[in-house]
């Protein structure tokens, strides 16, 4: 039991470290469609950990990873409001990991994006005028699509590397 807990805690810590590192990466580009926000490459991490290890890891990496990232040099108001959405997103991916195929599970990124937008709007970080622009939706779809592809590739590679012969 202790070994199992230790393994889960290590997985969560690794997930948080990767999330924060990606959040502070110098390769990150600003989001051309949402002023002040970045292209959130690190959003794929809670989903990947949810798919690979389960709902607990997905939830904790989403919540704590986003929290620590919000405290890191890359902090911004968007990141603070994204704590809950990213936790829910990781939890959902982990919750359905045995029922749905990977591409569908990867689409839980969309849940994260929708919840993020909801939070940004109700806390006034995103003007409602943004929603009337078509380029905003293209940007969102592009980010979600590339995220889904990245999740599929990374989970497949992980499973291939760790499968028992």
């Amino acid at each position, binding site marked *: 039991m202790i070994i199992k807990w230790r393994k889960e805690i290590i997985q969560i810590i690794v997930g948080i470290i*990767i999330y924060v*590192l*990606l959040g*502070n*990466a*110098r*390769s990150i580009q600003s989001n051309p469609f949402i002023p002040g926000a970045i292209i959130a490459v690190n959003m794929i991490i809670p989903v990947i950990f949810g798919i690979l290890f389960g709902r607990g890891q997905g939830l904790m990496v989403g919540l704590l990873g986003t929290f620590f990232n919000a405290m890191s040099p890359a902090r911004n108001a968007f990141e603070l409001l994204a704590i809950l959405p990213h936790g829910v997103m990781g939890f959902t991916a982990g919750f359905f990991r045995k029922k749905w195929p990977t591409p569908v599970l990867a689409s839980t990124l969309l849940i994260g994006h929708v919840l993020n937008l909801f939070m940004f709007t109700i806390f006034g970080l995103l003007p409602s005028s943004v929603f009337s622009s078509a380029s905003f939706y293209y940007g969102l779809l592009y980010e979600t699509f590339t995220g889904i*592809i990245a999740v599929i*590739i990374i989970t*497949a*590679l992980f*499973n*291939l*590397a*760790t*499968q028992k*012969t």
Partner: protein
Amino acid sequence: MALTTNTAVWKTLIVIFAILTFLFSALFFFSNIFLTFVFGVGLILITETFINYYRKRMQKYNLPKWKYKLYAYILIVFWVFAILMLIASSFEDLATVIANPDQAKLSLFYNYRVRPYIPNIIKDNYLTDEAFSKASAYIFSLFSSTISTASFFLFSGILIIPLMFYLNFRRKDSLIKELYSLVPEKYFSGFRRATQDISKQLHDFYRAKVVESIIVGSICCLGFFVAGLKGWLILGFFAGFFNIVPYLGPVFGAIPPIIIGLLDEPITAFYVFITIIISQLIDNFYLIPFMVTSKVKIDALCGIVLILIGAKLLGILGMIFAIPIYLVYKIVLVESYNELVRIHDNPSK
């Protein structure tokens, strides 16, 4: 158990040892074709791993055959497209850095961070314009010879690898059957055990090395991305790939990203250096002792000695193939010894 004193057993073992040595010498003599062959085997094993994974995942859906094949083709197209896109974008990034290095930053970095630490004797005697032109001529000739070697591998690969794929996926069973039918009956069980053992051990070794390279490559990719290195994906992939060569590989893998980092921004090169140090610490203190060595059941010290002997005898190729060759020798000689003892010491059995 004490070793046998039967001279016939030892004489036969010496002959087997000589045959194996001759076989490996011939392979290393035709090293270019041998390398293409090894690369082909690697590709076949990767393809088989993908096929097994796909079969395992699709088993639960119980699909008709045409759908099963259709999804496989869609997946192949998706993977090829994704890989090509990633490689293309990575090369595009690299090309922008190589074509337009930030000269001002570079010369600032060289004059204030590098030059003060170079002893005067080296500056006066070696860092002359003539030395620089010689160095650039050497780099150019190295580049041309690399391209000619790469084209040789490409052409021999195009000729040999499809044939290997055909033999493996279409005629593997009949070839094994034919090979076994050539073995005399009294040696059959030992021969089969030895071939199965060799196949399993080499497969385990290959798998452990691939997983090790994937992990090191992933750490490098992540670190290079965080560092803001242009072309992080392709450079991380190369760092993982070169990691196959023990000891020297990580150095070969580290040079291109550090140079690209320096061409872009010196601080990037520093982060890249830190990433490589971290990846090597994880590799040497966790991956090699707990994954690679335990998988192939070789003592860590024995592994180091074998690699050093391989390096001395056959250079870089020897370093890469030292452990697999040792495994083949070990299994063939142990199995042959057991069989020979059974036949010579207990002829009634």
